[in-house]
């Protein structure tokens, strides 16, 4: 790090903080792949925050997974010092926001920490629904928007058209739209200048009681939970006893500092500044995103608005492929949970799969991330059952149960009604794909609410639809039917009763609880058939015929047979072959390890996920 280029410095002994009028806090709103991370990289380079020689692509995405998928999962801030054309030195805090619909709440908190936002739109793709959703969120919070059209260097770019579209959307002059190529570095200085000129400085009360907004938290084994914060009022400093306003829990900070972009201790954060507090707390649950930190000795009268506790929307069973790994799986989930306040899990027992956990996720993407991290970072062979939403069941005795898995459904005679979660779904699409979008949503029990033309070519479609219908494959289907042009966003609406039944799958005559799904009665027959034929394809041939059946209650609605294996033998094994053939067989055996024995039948992980593929073709 080049200490000498930083004009105002930051050491343990820093006593004064940056004046609010020379602080700018902003984030970047962009759709996946529209170049948010690349732009952030350029800003870091231009301000000398990161030495170009040490630059690795997408500095802010610290998890390997983030870099690989090109999606930000965590909101990571960075502090830059910028000497503006007016000769003044400014503190710019860029807060990188998560880029997936599963993390909408985190995005809203990150936005709340800013006064402005750079809206990045791909010059060839135009605006997408999720960008729009985040943009509306930013506008609701009165953020100053700096519109930017990126990737003007691409052959398919149509910067004028997209700039006009963005200008119309924001009701600003087209000249305000900055056209850049983050990749080439073209016009990126203009973006920095606009940040200083157009985004208002923070306007908190420097003398007021401390209020700092937590917009992200991460677990660190040495410092405990490190909360990323934006100080709104007052001064956050070492030595004072601090308090989480939602829980009333007090703690003494272990370290206070800034992201430059690595954590650097400063001991103090002034009003309007962005940085971190190492809390010494043991779990991110104790420092939840959206909570307000105040001083225990002089608490603020009210917390900052907007805090809510996140609730998982999607549930799935997680089982170790080798039952010996149960404890290792629990440890791994506990460790992941330290860093992931939205992940929930509790022990679950399956007749078919043995001991495992039922885990809750914000959405499918969140679930995939957890699965990948369990496999990659903890080296576990795990099996995920088909995801399900949380249903509510009204029993004949007047109770209301919440169930997170089809296996928890009570006896049919005890059920008065099953309620399922509905969401409000927004689809943003070019007008030529309205038909295919309508068709897609109607097939999945969607109810049309309204359509708004954004401009002559684009339309926003609003529906209500059961969450379970958009969980699986919906997004891919949406992309496929619109050649990638449509995009979507959704939010929870309410629980509504539905004509739902449990569809059981029997393998070799035995019901496999982990394969049961709750489906709408009208779809049961079709889904049962598809599930059976899918299972027939993925269950490898065994030493005997294996019958696969789908049933509702006692009634079998579909069946198929996996024929017995006929041949699995190496024709030759002579002296020169022994080592190689043994290794071949060892490989075969490792392959078998990924299969789960259910009764006498070996079932691969894919089978448990085949319910996911029901809507394909």
């Amino acid at each position, binding site marked *: 790090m080049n200490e000498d280029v930083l004009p105002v410095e930051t050491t343990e002994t820093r006593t004064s903080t940056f004046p609010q009028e020379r602080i700018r806090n902003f984030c970047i709103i962009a759709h996946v792949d529209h170049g948010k991370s690349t732009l952030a990289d350029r800003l870091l380079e231009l301000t000398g925050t990161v030495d170009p020689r040490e630059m690795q692509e997408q500095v802010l995405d610290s998890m390997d997974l983030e870099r690989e998928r090109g999606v930000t999962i965590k909101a990571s801030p960075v502090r830059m010092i910028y000497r503006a054309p007016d000769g003044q030195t400014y503190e710019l805090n860029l807060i990188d926001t998560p880029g997936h619909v599963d993390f909408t709440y985190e995005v809203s908190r990150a936005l709340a920490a800013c006064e402005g936002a750079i809206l990045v739109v791909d010059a060839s793709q135009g605006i997408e629904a999720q960008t729009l959703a985040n943009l509306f969120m930013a506008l609701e919070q009165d953020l100053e928007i700096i519109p930017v059209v990126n990737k003007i260097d691409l052959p398919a770019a149509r910067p004028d058209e997209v700039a006009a579209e963005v200008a119309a959307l924001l009701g600003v002059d087209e000249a305000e739209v900055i056209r850049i190529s983050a990749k080439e570095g073209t016009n990126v200085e203009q973006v920095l200048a606009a940040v200083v000129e157009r985004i208002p400085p923070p306007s908190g009360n420097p003398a007021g009681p401390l209020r700092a907004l937590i917009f992200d938290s991460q677990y660190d084994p040495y410092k405990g939970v490190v909360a990323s914060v934006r100080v709104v009022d007052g001064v956050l400093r070492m030595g004072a006893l601090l308090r989480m306003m939602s829980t009333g829990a007090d703690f003494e900070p272990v370290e206070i500092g800034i992201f430059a972009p690595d954590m650097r201790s400063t001991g103090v954060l002034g009003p309007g500044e962005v940085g971190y507090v190492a809390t010494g707390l043991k779990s991110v649950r104790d420092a939840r995103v959206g909570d307000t930190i105040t001083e225990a000795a002089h608490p603020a009268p009210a917390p900052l608005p907007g805090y809510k506790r996140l609730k998982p929307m999607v549930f799935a069973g997680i089982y170790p492929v080798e039952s010996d790994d149960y404890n290792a799986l629990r440890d791994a989930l506990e460790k992941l949970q330290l860093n992931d306040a939205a992940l929930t899990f509790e022990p679950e027992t399956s007749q078919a799969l043995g001991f495992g956990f039922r885990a809750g996720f914000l959405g499918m993407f969140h679930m995939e991330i957890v699965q990948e991290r369990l496999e990659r970072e903890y080296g576990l062979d795990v099996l995920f059952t088909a995801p399900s939403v949380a249903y509510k069941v009204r029993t004949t005795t007047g109770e209301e149960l919440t169930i997170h898995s089809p296996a928890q459904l009570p006896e049919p005679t005890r059920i008065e009604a099953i309620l399922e979660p509905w969401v409000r779904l927004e689809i943003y699409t070019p007008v030529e794909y309205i038909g295919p979008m309508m068709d897609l949503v109607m097939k999945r029990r969607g109810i049309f609410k309204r359509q708004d033309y954004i401009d002559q070519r684009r339309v926003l479609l609003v529906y209500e639809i059961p969450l379970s219908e958009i969980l699986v494959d919906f997004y891919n289907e949406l992309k496929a039917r619109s050649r990638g042009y449509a995009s979507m966003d959704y939010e929870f609406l309410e629980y509504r009763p539905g004509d739902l039944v449990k569809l059981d799958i029997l393998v070799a005559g035995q019901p496999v609880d982990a394969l049961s799904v709750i489906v709408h009665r009208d779809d049961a027959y079709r889904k049962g058939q598809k599930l059976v034929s899918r299972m027939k394809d993925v269950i490898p041939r065994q030493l005997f015929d294996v019958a696969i059946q789908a049933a509702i209650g006692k009634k079998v609605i579909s069946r198929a047979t996996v024929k017995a294996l*006929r041949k*699995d*033998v190496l*024709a030759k094994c*002579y002296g020169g072959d*022994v080592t190689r053939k043994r290794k071949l067989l060892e490989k075969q055996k490792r392959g078998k390890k990924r299969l789960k024995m259910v009764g006498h039948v070996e079932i691969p992980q894919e089978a448990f996920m085949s319910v996911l593929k029901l809507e394909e073709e």
Partner: protein
Amino acid sequence: MKVGGQVDSVKVIPVKVPQVFPFPVQPAPQGWGLYLHIPFCERKCPYCDFNTYAGLEEMYERYVSALVKEIRRVGDVLGRPVVRTIFLGGGTPTVLSPQGLEALFRALNDAFAVQPNAEITCEANPGTVDRSRFQVLHELGVNRLSLGAQSFVSEELRFLGRIHDVRDIQQAVDAARSVGFENVNLDLIYGLPGQSPHAWRVSLQRALACQPTHISCYALTVEEKTSLARWVANGRVPPPDEDLQAELYMMAQDILEEAGYVHYEISNWARPGRMCQHNLIYWRNEPFLGLGAGAHACDLRRRWWLERAPHIYIRRVIGDETTVVGWEELSSQTAMAETMMLGLRLLQEGVSRSRFAKQFGVDPVVYYRSVVARLQAWGLLEVLPDRLRLTPRAYTVANRVFVEFL
């Protein structure tokens, strides 16, 4: 030689001792099986992944000289050990000149104590032999011929890229008989794409008509990096149909058993008393030496293998370097697993419990009790007083049994 301050220590003899093995080789008190590899063919068959090369005719002589030298130095290092069987394989050993073959056998008899009743096999391609070549082999002491017949259907032979025709097979067998070979094996390949059960029956019956003492039937297998694998990958040839292969296999069982052959190994049938003694050494997991490019060997403590490329092999021998390029130390666990995986291929004798116990100090039924119980429950393994063997229904799915022991 760099010598330190003290001079009173060791006397260094500045003579280069040729290193034959980079590790001590265990003696084989019962005698070795000896495999000799000739890595040359007139043409490379599209399904073959053996270490063999076409078009290297000008290398034959140098290779034979190197192999002669290798035979002599190995025999030397091991102290002229006892040899129970010799197997000359390839490749096509019969591409070598009579002088070359003669040189090899002279070296073998000098360097090893070849038992008087030793089984000595030579592989031959029906397309590359004539009566005089057989005559030479017989005079050199070869007493068993293994002919790569592969099929008695012309189109199949063409598909397999063989250089011989159906007629050549019968002529080769007749020629062998006429110079005194009684013990003759025919190799057959089945399960070719589109092969009809009828065509397979024809091959089997015509093979039987030659009255061989031994028949090997191999399911066509798509081995990596062969022409066949490329054909399958780009769709020119459909992959072998395993259900069909299973059906043809059972046909072979019926037909060959009916004709009086004993099904003694998964892919091998023999007249009573005519099992291949050399291959039995492999399946019983007994010690064998391998000489020649790419050959493997095993002294029960480790398995090792030699340089595959013939020109490098030759260079190493000439340079008095070892030809051993790799080896694997066998833990007792691995050795036990290999004993099971190999021994269970022997359908009649299976794995001898007493011999296993003598070697590893534990009865396999005890050591592998849960595996044995599981396989018995599946009806794939038979436990007899002194042996463990596959049940007939396991023959076509034997890998499922083998993996349990790994």
